[in-house]
């Protein structure tokens, strides 16, 4: 019976924590929920900076520094490279979050949504979050070396172009759809 009491107490505490999280005031990112204009904003996606990052992290530079520079400079450059990689990861996450916001806004404003699509998106965001934290922690504690960015270059360059086109197109399509719905309905999209 003590075991049952312990288990149920844990369940109740977990449920109360979930409740507090679900009811707390939304953060800045959530308050921008239906701001579709921000989703179609022009400008480069972060993935498109990959070529520059690759150049900054070139192994040739490190070899040159090791030959000519002091060990302090090599360490400093290595640290800087790690920071650049971390920053790049953060920006990739922003791209991901931007897409998620678009998807949530479209789902919230749709008369019917597919459970399968929504579950898949939930799973993808959990997966992304887990991988992101793993890589970040690895970099942060020096457990993982800064990757050979060359090997990723081709793939990400391709993706960057696709993302650039796709995000813009998706944003425009969503914004147009909302605009059309607003016109037909005769009211704004202000759901606050």
């Amino acid at each position, binding site marked *: *019976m003590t075991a049952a009491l312990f288990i149920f107490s844990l369940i109740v505490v977990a449920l109360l924590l979930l409740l507090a999280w679900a009811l707390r005031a939304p953060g800045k990112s959530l308050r921008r929920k239906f701001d579709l204009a921000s989703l179609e904003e022009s400008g480069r996606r972060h993935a498109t900076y990959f070529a520059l990052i690759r150049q900054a992290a070139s192994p040739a530079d490190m070899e040159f520094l090791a030959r000519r520079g002091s060990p302090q400079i090599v360490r400093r450059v290595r640290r800087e490279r790690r920071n650049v990689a971390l920053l790049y990861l953060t920006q990739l996450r922003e791209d991901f979050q931007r897409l998620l916001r678009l*998807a949530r806004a479209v789902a919230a*404003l749709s008369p019917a949504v597919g459970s399968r699509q929504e579950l898949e998106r939930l799973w993808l965001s959990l997966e992304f979050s887990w991988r992101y934290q793993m890589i970040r922690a690895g970099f942060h504690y020096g457990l993982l070396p800064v990757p050979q960015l060359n090997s990723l270059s081709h793939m990400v360059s391709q993706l960057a172009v696709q993302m650039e086109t796709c995000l813009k197109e998706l944003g425009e*399509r969503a914004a147009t759809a909302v605009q059309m719905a607003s016109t037909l309905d005769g009211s704004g999209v202000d759901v606050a």
Partner: protein
Amino acid sequence: MLALPPLILLLWAIEIIVQLTVLFLVVVKRHFHTLPLFLLYIALNLCQVAFLFFVYSQYGFTSPTTRQLSWASEQVILTAQALAAAEVLYRVLRHYAGIWALAWRLIAVAAFIVICYALSSAELSPRWTLLIANRGFHLTFVVALISCLLLVRFYAIPIDSLYKALMGGFCILSCMIVAVDTLFQALFLRHFPNSGVIWNSSEMVVFIGVQIVWALALRQPVRVDDKPALLHPDTYDRLSPDVNSRLRDLNDVLSRFLRLQVFRP
């Protein structure tokens, strides 16, 4: 009535006053237009108090008839509670047809899982069937409601502070009943003195606390929100797979990033 412990009588009196205040606020602030089932829930709670008063005075506090009648009246209250909570949830999601439909599916899945668990537990200990059924109901209720609240947060759907207070109150009440029921079972089995009084008074204290929060929230009117313009049904079907495909691509980048580092010689 004299057989009732003074603590229970005091809590009962406070409970009646607080419930009458809540009922008064629902009527005066005209919340009954939007929350008729919530009004019914509060009214039924007051009726249950009157009914139990009659039963205790006729059959005593601990007789089998009293136990049967009080559990029977509890079923009516639990049904009213579920309907009132569903009504509040509907008020939050009524403009979002897609998410409302998704919420119902989520409630059905959560309810199915927890009811299966409650039934199997009740079979294992037939002596405690009523208590386990009560705990099972509250567990089902709170899991389903919190799942829906998480859904609401995930889709960044705005909730009025009154609805937050009402749903939060329902969840806290059910969570505490789950804990108190389990505690009572543990105390009773150890022959702890006055375990029944502890059980009753704990539930009443939580209920009074929740009602006070509701009374405070009900003083404010609900903010009138504009109905958002919904998208054409095709829009979701066209956009959603594309977005998911892009999310998969981004996930793939991270996956390769990770693999490259982990397996790098």
